[in-house]
């Protein structure tokens, strides 16, 4: 499997990334773990999840995907895996987020809560000494967002070894 860099960052990932949005919905936990294991065995080192998974977003199964990913992570060498997650943007109108009573937004409060919840689902804490989120992506779904709000909140994680490595937009 070939690898490529994420932007100008130092991280090289396999050119196939296994997504997880079906995990906990269309694929049950057992099947999800089998898909993850077989992907890992095939050489894939890059995995993508989101606080808003599985799809379609529904409070009845909110966060289930990241829990499954967390269970699987515990069976692997954490350093061998680059894991990306996404914080859900403002969801009024376009979709209703499964998290935070559907009132998600891209400010420091929401990004912090999303990062902490993701790390906790993966069995990691947010203290400085712990492992990282491979990438986190902000998903702005409104045209009126201010780049500075998002970048300063994301930068907090990128600069604190606590959590995040490269950031992305989705």
């Amino acid at each position: 499997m070939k690898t490529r860099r994420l932007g100008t960052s130092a991280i090289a990932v396999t050119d196939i990334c296994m997504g997880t949005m079906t995990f906990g919905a269309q694929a049950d936990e057992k099947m999800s773990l089998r898909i993850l294991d077989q992907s890992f065995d095939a050489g894939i080192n890059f995995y993508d999840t989101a606080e808003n998974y599985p799809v379609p977003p529904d409070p009845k199964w909110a966060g289930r995907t990241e829990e499954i990913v967390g269970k699987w992570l515990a069976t692997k060498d954490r350093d061998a895996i680059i894991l990306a997650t996404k914080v859900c943007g403002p969801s009024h109108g376009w979709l209703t987020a499964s998290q935070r009573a559907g009132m998600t937004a891209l400010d420091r409060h929401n990004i912090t809560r999303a990062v902490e919840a993701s790390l906790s689902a993966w069995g990691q804490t947010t203290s400085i000494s712990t492992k990282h989120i491979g990438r986190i992506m902000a998903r702005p779904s409104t045209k009126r967002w201010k780049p500075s709000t998002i970048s300063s909140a994301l930068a907090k994680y990128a600069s604190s070894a606590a959590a995040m490595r490269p950031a992305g937009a989705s």
Partner: protein
Amino acid sequence: MKSLETSRRRGVAEYQTIQNNFSMNNRRFEDELAQVCREEGVSLIPYSPLAGGVLSGKYNDGARPEGARFSRYLEIGGRQAAMTKRFAGEKALASTERFMAIAAEAEMSPVTLAIAWSKQHDFVASTIVGATHENQLPEIFAASDLELDKATMKAIKGVSRDIRYPMG
């Protein structure tokens, strides 16, 4: 661009990646963003390389396979049904049929073709795939060390020229 400039001005981490919908059935990324990303050093991490599974051909000829996403979405209605119309509408299915013929010619599954095609763009770092069952994995993994030849790439381009914006 605004965000990249903001980050650079403030000396904080900037976006390294963008995750957008990109597939043989949705090439809108190439209209403008691809060039911006090339110049700014931002990688595309495309999602939906199979256009929601449509490019596998499983929805062709009016099929609505049990347990498949868009079969479920039609039942759910609302935004999900609207999404189904976009992903599995007439034009999307027509181009899918053409891509299936190209895949047959190249002796690979349409799934393998679609993923290999996505990987073959310089602005793409990693193509996000998905599965609902482990039996879908071999066709996905078959794309891992595969490079499509010029004739195949040209044939795909021809479909895109004939059927513009299959997903609207």
